[in-house]
């Protein structure tokens, strides 16, 4: 065989036939990959964006940095300006402090002046009240005198007339004498008590229970209202139960003429020296000197 024959036989070599079903298997096994051309076709606009993205990103970053620098520069400038303003304000601070101190001082003085004015007003008011009270005290004194006079006139025995009996007068005289005796015993008890207490008179009657022995001495026999107190013991008796006005002060011993006790009914007066006098109220009156009561004649020429 020559080359032509060999080539002819080889060119016409039989072709094996594919088994049935192979075509279907091959067609069923077609698994085309996802086409990459589709996004290109759809997103032509993306290509420039993708191409320019690095430049755009860098530009954005650069722009952001520039904006940040500008904002920070502006902020820094404003802070500097504030700083300068504050420094300028701080320069005048000592002067302002002095002014403030002077202002506070002036304000304190003004407050003090206002307080003084207020105090002055109060003083004026108090002075007015004092003068008012003094006038009231004078009125009270007069009223007291009048009250005593009225009481004495009320308790005094009716003027003897033809109706008064001899026995009534004797009774009144006896009661007056008994009242004098009571005051004398009171004066004696006071002196005894002073002897035991450095020459000082007691300011209370109850403390002289040992010297007085019984409380009956302190009740005037003409004082019928206080007659029940005469039977009380010292444990029950109180200073305000007595019929007499007890005026003694601790150092009255040095003032022998001052009144230490008196009977408002009979006008019997016990003096500091222990003496007792029965006086006529129309001829003498009580005078207060140095906080003590004395008797002085209404008419200086007449004797009590």
């Amino acid at each position, binding site marked *: 065989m020559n080359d032509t024959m*060999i080539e002819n036989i080889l060119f016409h070599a039989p072709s094996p036939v594919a088994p049935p079903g*192979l075509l279907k*298997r091959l067609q069923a096994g*077609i698994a*085309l990959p996802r086409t990459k051309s*589709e996004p290109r076709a759809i997103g032509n606009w993306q290509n420039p964006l993708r191409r320019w993205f690095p430049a755009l990103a860098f530009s954005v970053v650069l722009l952001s940095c520039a904006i940040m620098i500008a904002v920070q520069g502006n902020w820094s400038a404003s802070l500097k300006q504030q700083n300068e303003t504050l420094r300028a304000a701080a320069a005048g601070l000592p002067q302002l402090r002095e002014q403030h101190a002077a202002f506070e001082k002036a304000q304190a003085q003004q407050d003090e002046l206002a307080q003084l004015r207020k105090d002055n007003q109060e003083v004026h008011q108090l002075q007015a009240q004092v003068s008012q009270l003094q006038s009231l005290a004078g009125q009270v004194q007069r009223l007291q005198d009048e009250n005593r006079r009225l009481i004495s006139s009320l308790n005094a025995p009716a003027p003897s007339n033809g109706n008064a009996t001899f026995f009534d007068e004797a009774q009144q005289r006896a009661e007056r004498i008994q009242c004098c005796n009571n005051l004398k015993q009171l004066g004696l008890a006071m002196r005894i008590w002073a002897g035991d207490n450095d020459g000082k008179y007691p300011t209370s009657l109850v403390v002289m229970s040992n010297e007085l022995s019984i409380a009956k001495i302190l009740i005037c026999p003409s004082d019928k209202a206080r007659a029940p107190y005469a039977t009380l013991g010292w444990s029950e008796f109180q200073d305000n139960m007595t019929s007499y006005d007890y005026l003694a002060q601790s150092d009255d011993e040095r003032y022998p003429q001052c009144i230490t006790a008196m009977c408002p009914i009979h006008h019997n007066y016990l003096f500091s020296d222990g003496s007792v006098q029965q006086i006529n109220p129309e001829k003498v009156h009580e005078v207060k000197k140095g906080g003590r009561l004395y008797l002085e004649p209404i008419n200086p020429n007449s004797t009590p």
Partner: protein
Amino acid sequence: MSETAEILYQRAQKGDVAAASELVSLFYQRIFAYLRRLSGNDEDAADLTQKTFARSWQSLASYQRRSAFSTWLHGIAYHVYLDWRRKRNPGDARSDEWWETQPANSPTPYENTAERESALQLYQWVDELDDEKKQTVHLHYYQNLPLSETAEVLGVAVSTVKYRLREALDFLRARSAANELHPERKTI
């Protein structure tokens, strides 16, 4: 056919399964025949054909259109066959029954039994060629690929293809001459 294949390929590249199916129906016979002659049995040839098309779908996007689609597909089949043969047990014997059955079932240019026997003998001698020459003969003569496409499938220059074919023809002619001188040495 190549223009039709080109259009189908473009559609398949865009994800058209119908076009891909059409491509399969166009080329599966040739690829199966090529691999059947090389592998020696139908089962392996069918598996290799499936692998060839599967790999072609995976590499569809990488097809650069520098050659015809059939050439590109033959290149894939050639490499699939090489991979298969590397993994295959070297002791597996190749079936030769096909050469005896196929010519009788298909239209041939043989005019008599003597020529048919000569053709069968020639095909057997082709199988005795070394692998490079055998691949060259298969692609150029059996698969009817031009020299340039054969060279592209094998990854060699056209001159190399020509050289190998020349060598193969010399070998076949020598064997034929030897067979005519010593007919008792027929191997079939």
